[in-house]
Each structure stands twice: as structure tokens, then as C-alpha cells.
């Protein structure tokens, strides 16, 4: 085997690398959705936003040659899609879930339609910080390649956690999510708060999409996301609506997702598809282990999923 004499040590190393790479879009989508859900709105359309973000980022990077401009445009597209979702949900007798699914299908379809011309060409990559410069072993160097967006994601998770607790704006978002009655009694414009929170959540998901097409896997095609946006929304529940826990959950999910490629890299190819299911099995297992029909789901925003 050409694994540089690392032997089985290659597995955790490859998982670390995988965790960093695979988790980045999950971090963005789940942190964004965390914000949205704390304001009392669910946006299932983030899967579509992710794909739309990937497509638009790729297209812009390809035409302008600047991947970061692509990221910016993806964020704007996400912002608009989020605002659209929130705007529709504010109409009377409209349900979050149904609207979200509708927008998810619309955005994916739109991305496939608009993205057709960009499937073949190769757009510039976002690049990474080389933290493994000190090592002579290529696997170590590769594992310690930390992409910029990963760092941005971590910073925003901590920033959001801090803001929700320590700023007026954060308290108002939480109030809108916990109790519409209390919010209205205090003169908080619940609709506008949710609109902003949902739009920002969408922008995060757009950036997550840009990562997919511009860094890893680093190209645009129609199977790019395959449900990662939806999975990230589920991670928010798993993380009990806490941005920091969203971060951990995404990392865990990313690491589990990296198991099967890592095993393959050291030559274990049996059960490849079985191990590919690891993240899903893990999430399901943890969800079942931590749920209870009687104990209240701690941290669930009071207004979430309230059907009007």
C-alpha cells in the first residue's frame, strides 16, 4: 500500500481531514438554520438554497475568475431565498414546512436549469491554509489543510452563540421564537425579526453551497448536495438549537462521513457502502438514545412548529 508507512494511523488522520472538509457545509447550513429556528421559523428549503448557492458561486467564479466573489454572490442568493421563504410564511394560513419543501424543489430545479452550461468547465478553487507545513509526511500535510470557510464557520458559530445570549438583537430573536404573545406585548415586530433571521440563515446556507462547488468536491454537478441541506436541518434538532453544539454535531457528522473513504485509503474496501451510511446511522442512534416521549425537548423554541 502506498500510505507512506503510516499504516492504520492513516485512518484517524484521514477522518480528521474528512471531518474538516465534509463538515464545513453542514456547519454553515446548521448554524444558519439554528438562527432561523431560534426566531420561530423552520426553513426546510435550505437544501435548495445550498444547491442554488453552489451553482451561482460556481458560475460567478468561472466567469469572473474570483472564487470569493462567487461566495459573496452565493450569500446574496441565499439571503433572497431566505427572505422569500419568510415573506411567504408571513401570509395568513401558510405553513412553514409546506412552503419550505416547495421552495426546496423550486430552488434545486432552478439551479439545475441555470447551471447546465457550467457542468463541464473547471472554476478556480477557494484555497486553504496549510497548517501541515512542518511535516514531511504528505498525509499529515493533506489532513492539516484547513480551508478558510471552515474557519469562518467556526467563528460564526461562536459569534452567533454569543450574540444570542448577550445582545439586544439576540434576545429579541429568541423572544420571537419563544413566545409571540410576549413579543407582541413588548412591541417586538415578530414578522420582521423572523424575516431578517430567515434571510441571514439563507445567506449562511448559500455560503455552504459555495463551499461545495468551489472547494470540496470542487465542481458543479447536479448530484452535488444529495440531501446535505436537509441533513443539516436535522442536525439543528440534534444539537438542541445551540450554535456551538451545531458545530460539534457537524464535525461529528463529517468525521463519520469520512470513515469509509479513510478505510478505503488504507486498503479496506469491504463494506464501503455500509460505512458510507455511518453518519446517518450515528445520527439516528444518537437521536433515539437522547429522546424521550415525556421529557421535554430541552431548548426547543416555544413557537417552533406552531401551526396556525
Amino acid at each position, binding site marked *: 500500500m502506498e500510505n507512506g508507512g503510516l499504516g492504520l494511523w492513516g485512518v484517524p488522520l484521514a477522518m480528521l481531514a474528512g471531518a474538516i472538509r465534509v463538515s464545513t457545509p453542514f456547519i454553515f447550513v446548521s448554524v444558519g438554520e439554528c438562527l432561523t429556528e431560534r426566531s420561530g421559523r423552520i426553513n426546510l428549503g435550505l437544501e435548495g438554497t445550498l444547491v442554488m448557492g453552489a451553482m451561482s458561486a460556481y458560475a460567478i467564479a468561472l466567469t469572473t475568475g474570483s472564487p470569493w466573489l462567487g461566495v459573496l454572490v452565493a450569500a446574496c442568493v441565499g439571503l433572497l431565498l431566505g427572505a422569500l421563504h419568510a415573506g411567504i410564511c408571513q401570509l395568513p394560513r401558510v405553513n412553514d414546512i409546506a412552503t419550505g419543501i416547495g421552495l426546496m424543489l423550486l430552488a434545486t430545479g432552478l439551479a439545475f436549469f441555470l447551471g447546465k452550461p457550467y457542468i463541464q468547465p473547471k472554476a478556480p478553487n477557494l484555497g486553504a491554509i496549510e497548517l501541515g507545513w512542518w511535516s514531511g509526511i504528505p498525509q499529515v500535510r493533506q489532513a492539516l489543510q484547513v480551508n478558510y470557510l471552515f474557519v469562518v464557520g467556526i467563528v460564526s458559530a461562536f459569534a452567533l452563540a454569543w450574540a444570542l445570549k*448577550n*445582545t*439586544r*438583537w439576540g*434576545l429579541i430573536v*429568541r*423572544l420571537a421564537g*419563544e*413566545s409571540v*404573545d*410576549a413579543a*407582541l*406585548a*413588548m*412591541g417586538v415586530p415578530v414578522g420582521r425579526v423572523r424575516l431578517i433571521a430567515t434571510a441571514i440563515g439563507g445567506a449562511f446556507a448559500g455560503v455552504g453551497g459555495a463551499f461545495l462547488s468551489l472547494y470540496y468536491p470542487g465542481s458543479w454537478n447536479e448530484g452535488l448536495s444529495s440531501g446535505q441541506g436537509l441533513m443539516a436541518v436535522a442536525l439543528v434538532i440534534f444539537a438542541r438549537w445551540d450554535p456551538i453544539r451545531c458545530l460539534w454535531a457537524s464535525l461529528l457528522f463529517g468525521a463519520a462521513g469520512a470513515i469509509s473513504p479513510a478505510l478505503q485509503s488504507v486498503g479496506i474496501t469491504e463494506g464501503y457502502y455500509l460505512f458510507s451510511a455511518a453518519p446517518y446511522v450515528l445520527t439516528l442512534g444518537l437521536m433515539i438514545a437522547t429522546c424521550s*416521549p*415525556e*421529557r*421535554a425537548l430541552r*431548548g*426547543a*423554541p*416555544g413557537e417552533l412548529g406552531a401551526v396556525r
Partner: protein
Amino acid sequence: MNAPSLELIGFSKRFGGLAALDEVSVKIVPGAFHALLGENGAGKSTLVKCAMGYYAADAGEILLNGRQVVINHPKQAHELGLGMVYQHFTLVPNMTVLENFVLSRKHLPSVIDWTVERQRLKDFFDTTPFTVPLDLPVADLAAGQKQKAEILRQLYLKRTLLILDEPTSVLTPDEADEVLSTLKQMTRELVLTIVTITHKFREVNAFCDTVTVLRRGKLVGTRPVSELDNDTMAEMMVGRRETRATVEREQRAAGKTVLQIEGLSVANTVGQLAVDVLSLDIHAGEIVGVAGVSGNGQRELVETLAGQRHAEAGVMKVHGERYTATRPEMIRHRIACLPEEPLRNACVAEMSVAENMALRSFDQAPASPDGVRLRRAPMRDVARRLIEAYRVKTPGPDAPIKALSGGNVQRAVLARELSSEGDLLIVANPCFGLDFAAVAEIRARIVQARNRGAAVLLVSEDLDEILQLSDRIVVMFDGKLALQTQAAQADVGAIGRAMAGH
């Protein structure tokens, strides 16, 4: 010296066909401790909610300190110094007490310095005779503490006129005295004017100076407390109507064992043991009263018996058979249950009164001749009969049950549960928030069930109720039975000490 006067002139409010308020006018002087009395559904909550701008009144003018003001929204009321403690809790459950208090301040800085805020609140709590823990989420507070927090928040916000909607219904008598005497002191110093809604004459006599009585949305009168005695107040509330005599309890020896609880342990919402290896037997034809301060496991015990919560350990048996609170078992053993907060625990708020009254029997004849189809007409007929028999005030059987006043929801559920003539009746705080006529009636019905031979488990925070109704009394403290005694030989002092854990 800034307690304001408030005058409400000609308030009317209709909900659909029902006139909840009809030309009601009240004058409240500065520094008053003004009581608002009336039966369930008399329109008391509606009147004060209109004054606060929570409901838009159909007609009515407000004079504050003699000047006319317009209040279309609670926020406007707050700016004028009016504050209200609602009948339901309004603190945000998932936030801490500190966060709740800070959030309701008028001007929040964009970045909040929690050390400063905490200190400010601590300093404020130093000036009040009672406090609440600052860093617990409100959801973890006991009901009494939540209510204290609601009142403290209004004081923290420096309201000058405070409206309290049944503030003491979740407090023990001692807590109620503590809270009310603090407020009384503030009205004496003329820093606060208070309007309070209550059903308790004891509090009216001890703390209030003026009483306004409403009946079916109309003003009956406003009189100083010194001119009134309890009989006059009662008469003003219900009008000249003979109150039904309470049912005499028959002397009867306790019959066969109906419910056996053996070594039951139940966890609460946060996973701690709330009921801790508890054993209790209840026989046919006896009322066992479970006394205790709220939060000592009574709620979890009732929820387990009602099938809302599973037991960690122990067995329950009914008629000697193992009982796991499934629907078939409840039907077979004829178990009826009136839990606390019936709107949440025993009703589907959005469904109609008739549908809610059929929840126990909708899959049996006559509502469902074959267990598949549902027939509305028989359901409605049954509901009409029950509404009549239990005097539930509702626009009709098809009104959503959540539109009923708190007391009438209680009656509706009681009607459903008692109409089946059960063998085992489980009731928790059945008279919570009811006016005295309704209290007498519901207690009479419970005794009636016992006289008929039903076994009754009565959980109540009201010790007088327990003493009045029970054949046998047990005290629950910290999930265990701290005391068991026959009611005839009950020593109130010993019960009180057991409730406090001595």
C-alpha cells in the same frame, strides 16, 4: 405619591353572539386596593384586558388621573405606567428569570452587560420581601414562584397601576399573604394603585378597600368593603338564586380495594424522581385526599394514573388487575380523571365543546354505531344535556372549547368525566380558579360520586378542600407519603408540619 386614579367608562365587548361586557363603568381612586368580583365567565378578565389594550373594546373610554387616554395596545398601557399580571403566565419559559426581567425593560442596550444587570436586579430584590432565583429557566420554577416572578417583574418595571388577574390562585395562603401585604403596603404609601380579580373573600376582607361586582357582563355595583359582609358579596355575585345544598356524606364503611399503588416511582420532566417508591390503596366509597405543597410529585402521580407519564418502577392495580393506564383499561375499569389545567391536560383546545365532551365515548354507541363512523347528532345531543346539567356557560356545543372561560372548561371536563359513573375518580385541584357557587357544586358532585360507591383520589393544594371532602388524608412531601391519617382524627397542625417536611 404617584399612584394614579383610573376610570373606565361604558365598556362593552362582544365575542360573536355573546356580550362579555355590557356598558361597564368603574372608578378606581389613587392608592386603592380595588377588588373585582364575579362568577366564572362574568367578564372580569375581559374588562381588564380591554383596559390594557389587549382586547379592542367595542365601546369605552379610559380616564387616567382624570385625563382621557387612548390605549390600543399593551405597549401604550405600559408607557402610561399600567401593568398587568395575567391569569396565565406570560414569562418566557425557556429563558432565565434574569433574561426575562431584562428583556421587558423599555430601553435595552445593544450589548447587554450581564454583571451590571444581575447586580441591578439583586439590588432590587434586596428591597422586596420575597425573591425568586435569578438564573433558573422560568420553566423550572414552581407555579408559586412563577407568579411571584410575574409580580416582581411588574414592580421592577416601576408600574404605578397594577392589574392582577387571580394572582393568588397558584400561591399557598401564606405566600398569598406575603405577596398581598407587600402590595398593600405600597398602596398605603401611594406609590401603587391595584386592581385585583379574585374569588377569595378572605383576601378581599383582609386586603381590599373597594369591591366592584360583575354579573354576566353587567355591572352590579361598586361598594367599600367596610359596608359589605360575605353574604352580601355572594348575593351581589350570583343574584337572588338559591344555591344548591351540599350533598350530605353518607356514613359508609369503605368497600373493596379499587386502586392499589405499590412502590410507584415516576420521573419528572427533567428526569429526577418526582414520585419516590409510593404505595397507596383506595377503597370503594372513600375519598382519599392527597395534601401537599405543589411540586412534591402530585402532578406526576396524577399524570401516571391518567396515562400521560410512564412509571420508572412499581405497579398500579385496579380491581386487582394490573393497570397501565391504556384506553381499554380505563373503559373496562370505568376510570374518570379530572387533571389540573384541564384545557391543556384533558381537552383539545381547538375542538368544539361537543367533541371534547365526547372524547371518552366517541368510539362507542351512540356516537359511533360501529366503531368506524362518527355521528355528530348524538354527540351534540349528549353535549347539550351535559351543558344543561352542569351549567356550562358556552355559546353552544359547537363553540371551540378554548373560547370558554377557565371555570367553564373545568365544568365541561367534569361533566364528561362524571357522566360515566366511574368506579375510580381521580381529581386534581378541581376547584382551581372557580367562584364559590361553582366550588360548592363541584365538591358536591365529588361527594355524590363517593356516596354512589366510587373510589376517589383527590389531589389538592387547598387544605380546606381536603379536610372538607376526604375520608382519609395523606400528605405528599418530596415524592413520598409523609403522613397518613383518618380525616375524622386529623390533626391540622401535624398535616401542616408534614406538608412543610417536618
